[in-house]
């Protein structure tokens, strides 16, 4: 396929991935590649299978068919914590923070995979453990500042305002030190002002060398920040390419506005 470029250039390759739930085909032989250092967007109407694809990538459930290749390694069917360890972090569509832990602790949990203290180190508070805890704490404050919610460090995640919760989720994902960041509708429920700030944050993350792969409903957000877009409808891939091409694609217009609208638009 022309869409699958050679290795090295692509950080993530989705190769003919299909996910079935019983008789329902949620994702149908989808194939595309995310290039290193770009902002890639996955869009589509409700129920198109976007989050299902995310869940397949992060190992929440294995794909029925096809394979997912990250940095040249086949990760299809890997357990979620392995995927995180390899360098894929994610946020969730319906925010899934650890509500009764402080914002700081949420970010510290994110660093779990990058820590080495063993059970004995923790029990006996060895110098190694103390040094690591200090490092983790400093890094956590740094990340909270990075997303702009340092003043909420001591608050329980559930007590943060909605917008800051979304930011905290991004900080927690960044704490795993990922190469690829999956954002599942990061701007959902945001005011236009918040959306602008979010776009700035995403651009900052990309400029720090992390590839961003996002699902988003807001066309303005998607069209303005993403380099390339993949459009799903009923589990099928209907378009793939830069925003300009996708925007004018007949099937995309039909999927979003209904087939009637597409015809009336052209006639």
């Amino acid at each position, binding site marked *: 396929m022309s869409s699958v470029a050679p290795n090295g250039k692509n950080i993530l390759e989705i190769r003919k991935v299909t996910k079935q739930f019983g008789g329902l085909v949620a994702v149908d032989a989808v194939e595309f590649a995310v290039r290193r250092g770009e902002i890639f967007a996955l869009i589509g109407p409700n129920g198109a299978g976007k989050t299902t694809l995310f869940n397949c990538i992060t190992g929440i459930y294995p794909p029925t068919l096809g394979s997912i290749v990250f940095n040249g390694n086949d990760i299809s069917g890997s357990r979620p914590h392995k995927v*995180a360890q390899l360098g894929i972090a994610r946020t969730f569509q319906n925010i899934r923070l*650890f509500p*009764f832990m402080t914002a700081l602790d949420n970010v510290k949990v*994110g660093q779990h995979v990058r820590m080495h203290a063993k059970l004995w180190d*923790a029990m006996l508070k060895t110098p190694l453990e103390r040094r690591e805890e200090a490092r983790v704490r400093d890094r956590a*404050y740094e990340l909270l500042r990075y997303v702009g919610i340092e003043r909420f460090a001591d608050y329980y995640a559930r007590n943060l305002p909605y917008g800051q919760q979304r930011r905290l989720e991004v900080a927690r994902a960044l704490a795993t030190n990922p190469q690829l960041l999956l954002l599942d509708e990061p701007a959902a429920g945001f005011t236009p002002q918040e959306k602008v700030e979010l776009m700035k944050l995403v651009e900052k993350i990309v400029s720090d060398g992390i590839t961003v792969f996002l699902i988003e409903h807001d066309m303005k957000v998607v069209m303005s920040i993403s380099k390339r877009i993949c459009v799903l409808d009923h589990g099928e891939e209907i378009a793939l390419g830069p925003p300009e091409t996708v925007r004018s694609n007949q099937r995309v217009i039909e999927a979003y506005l209904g087939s009637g609208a597409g015809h009336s638009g052209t006639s």
Partner: protein
Amino acid sequence: MSTATVSRPRPGPRRGRIKIGRWTINLRDRDTVVYLAIFIGALAFPTVADFVTGGQGGPIVLLAADAGVYVLLALGLNVVVGFAGLLDLGYAAFFAIGAYTYALAASGALFHTPLHHAIHIPFWLLLIVGVVIAASAGALLGAPTLRLRGDYLAIVTLGFGEIVPRVFRNAGDWTGGVNGLSALDNPVLPYWLDGPWAGVGEQFGIVKNLVFSVANPTAWYVLMFILICISVVLLNNLRKSRLGRAWMAIREDETAAQAMGINTVTTKLLAFAMGAATSGFAGCFYGAKLSLVSPENFQFQVSITILVMIVLGGMGSMPGVIVGGLTIYLVLFKILPDAPNQVHSLLATTGFTGIDQPHGDWPGLGEFVSRLKFLLFGLILVGTMLLRPGGLIPSRAEIDVERAAKETAGLEGAAG
């Protein structure tokens, strides 16, 4: 991102802090104050008990040492239920495993088994062995439950709690069956502690008179005190570590925890193992002190009592669990059993002996109270949970919600 010095929010005034070497005691921290109060109270307890009862404090001190067993158990179960959020209804099984480990390895019991050879391993060594065996059992019994959540997990652990004592009861060749194992060794201080001076004269020993027997309750009390201190320090270190955070993350949202790279399988197994390890401590002490273990001591009711201690004390809050454990033990094993006698003597001294006499259906007030023991216990539980839904000393999560919500509102107002 720069790695320059990070400004911590709210440095605030540093009053109320006492510095001792490397440690700082913050008297404004609720948990520290509670720990300190319990610590000092526990140190003073034997002397105070002796003083108050006019030299007859022995039984009370012994009772306190027994209460310590339950405090240890509650601390251990708190790791599983309070930290990791895994509802375990069969925790007494691990207590049994710890106690039977001691009973088999520190008595003549194995002589009567197909092994035909008694083993007498010293108590101090068996503390460690018991912990290791109980922890392994915890991981082993935890393994089949890994895929289960919530109610289903509770039911399976309930099953384990029933199976283990039954196995001990029915494996009569090894465990003495229904009668259990008796005449277990008493702990003896290692030679280097009461030492080469032991024969020379008491005044030279580092630790004088610390003989573990029924006649010397203080020895048991001191031992239990030390065991609890060790457990509290180790478990508290764990709580604040990478592993502790992983436990709480699993409790809060298992899927999100996995996505953050936490291996839920090993993390949950470690929770079961650490919880069981603490009960291994308790089991060894229990076997040594009672010099008897029998399957009757590890029934379902024990598991439930420990769970009640945690919930009443404050789930996930270690000081709360200690206070909860002591409170429930006091109510269940001292106040309620003594209540009928107290009523008898109260009526006798106030002259209302008429109420205490049985006539017709009326059994007399003392007997009546004795029959209502568990109703009273239930009322105490319901009352406490109504008055303090988060437990006696709730974990921070419970108390901070309202306060933080207010602060958040304030911050938003200031920002807007």
